[in-house]
């Protein structure tokens, strides 16, 4: 597992390089005397494959020097819960509006994920969302998404 994780960046970059090569296959490499839109992507893909190969080689030789920082057992759960909250936030912003969605997200994070006491959590949520409304919406005039029924 550790060996796979150490090699993961190289494998990811090889896949990405192949994706770039395939994704730009309809573009020209050279256009007369001028390098075409595919020229730079092709060079980058080549560089990614060479560097990935070198990284895999250093791992085989034991000279990579990378130190993995694996999360604690409970830590991964917290990160996944925060990410789930972030994804839900992005989904409900167009429906509930930016400020209410942010307030819900903060309460979820504080009360559910971080198990913080109720009153300070509500206080923090009110303070932060009020600051966002005042600074971004009122002061800067940024049109933050409103709830769908308004």
């Amino acid at each position: 597992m550790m060996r796979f994780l150490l090699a993961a960046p190289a494998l990811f970059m090889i896949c990405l390089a192949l994706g770039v090569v395939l994704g730009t296959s309809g573009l020209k490499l050279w256009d007369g005397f001028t390098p075409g839109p595919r020229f730079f992507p092709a060079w980058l893909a080549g560089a990614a494959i060479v560097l990935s190969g070198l990284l895999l080689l250093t791992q085989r030789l034991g000279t990579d020097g990378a130190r993995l920082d694996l999360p604690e057992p409970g830590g991964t759960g917290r990160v996944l819960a925060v990410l789930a909250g972030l994804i839900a936030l992005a989904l409900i912003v167009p429906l509930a509006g930016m400020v209410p969605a942010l307030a819900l997200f903060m309460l979820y994070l504080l009360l559910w994920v971080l198990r913080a006491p109720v009153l300070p959590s509500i206080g923090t949520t009110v303070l932060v969302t009020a600051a966002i409304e005042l600074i971004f919406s009122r002061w800067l005039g940024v049109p933050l998404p409103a709830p769908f029924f308004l």
Partner: protein
Amino acid sequence: MFEALSQGFVLAFEPQNLLFIFFGVLVGQIVGALPGVGPAAGMALLLPLTFGLEPVTAIMMLAGIMYGGQYGGTLTSVLINVPGEASGVMTAMDGHAMARNGRAGAALAIAAVGSFSAGVGAVLAVAVLTPALASVGLRFNAPEYFLLCALGVIAVGSLGEVPIRSLLAGVLGLTIALIGVDPLTGTPRLNFGLPSLYQGIDFIPVAIGVFGIAEVLSSLERSEKVEPIRTRLKDMWLTAEDWTTCRFSILRGGFIGLFVGIMPGAGASVASLLSYLTERKFSKHPERFGNGAIDGLAAAESANNSAAHGALIPMLSLGIPGSASSAVLMAALILHGIKPGPMLMTQESALVWGLIASMVIGNLILLIMNLPMAPLFAALLRIPYTYLAPGILVISLVGAYAATLSVATVWMCIAFGILGWLMMKLDIPRAPLVLALVLAPLMETSLRQSLLLSLGSPMIFVERPISAVLLVTVIFALIAPIWRTFGRRRLAR
């Protein structure tokens, strides 16, 4: 030069500019002190707030966050042993040891004095070196620009413990920048038919995701809590012996920081490490290093602040950012319709000299704030991170939304937050990715223009004198770290 500088001071002393310099250094001090934010992310977060401001005011404020962040990071490093970012690691080693020995005040004081002295020295260097370097920069054409950009991306990889991983991060940043349309022909490229990708990936969601959100995720992942140490005003004074021990450390740290800061990609963390190691060689008591050596602390702090200023020299004179923070500053210039590069000194001289003057004023404000008000800043750290983290996350996302007025940017922030967190876990440096993303358009355009000028011949990079020197430097910067990585095996044997 003196006339231009005095004009710069007139501009910086205008009430609105003075107010925003103060606001910038204050925010910098706060974001630098908050573990998980740091100056680059703080600047990226506040970038949307500058859209309604005059460009010069916006740049003064953002620069204030940049160097203010170096002062702020000292607080968490010394008081709770949590460096706000990598440049505070050496500070944490000896600063926190001093705090545990009851000398938190002296540690904060020497850090403030060292940062101020080195900061002002570096600003003077910016004033002297920027015009000189810009005049050299005027001789630059497409081949030189391409090689400079390549050097910027590769130089990050040449430093640190995992150079090949750093270089891969740089290539990833360049690859992300390919998305959108081809910069020369306007042909759609790698946007998979998604309308939100037609304009490419903006710098702001990447910086906010990779720095801000990833750091918060990483901090929330750890369950341990850190107990802050209280510090008092009367505890701030330094002894005569402290002054004697530190005066040359500050000087050496300042010079090393400036030199490292000028090199594209090196940054404040390398500067503080190099300065700390140099100081240990000079010290009569190297055994104290790591156990509360005030000279080690002074050198590291002077170096990281000097480097933060020094990184502005290549950014202002050549349009090449020397650090992640100066990359954000460069992005801000571009967003305000100003093109960085050698012509900046002539076309926007008021802005450049105003910025230089503002940095002297900002450093003075920071010294005044830091000596007596450090206990007040330390009080901010008493807010449990549990309550800070959600606030940082939501303000990051709103900041990203405000930059483009599109929910797609929020999605991008989340995606890059996950990417940044994975990079942290897999020991892949994140700064090369962000630097490469900023440099990519100039790099690609310059490469293709060069080959267009030479009718496709790569000899153009060898035939021009400056270009040839840069090419040799690029090749050396590319091969040296890879050679070093493979050399580890031989050394181990």
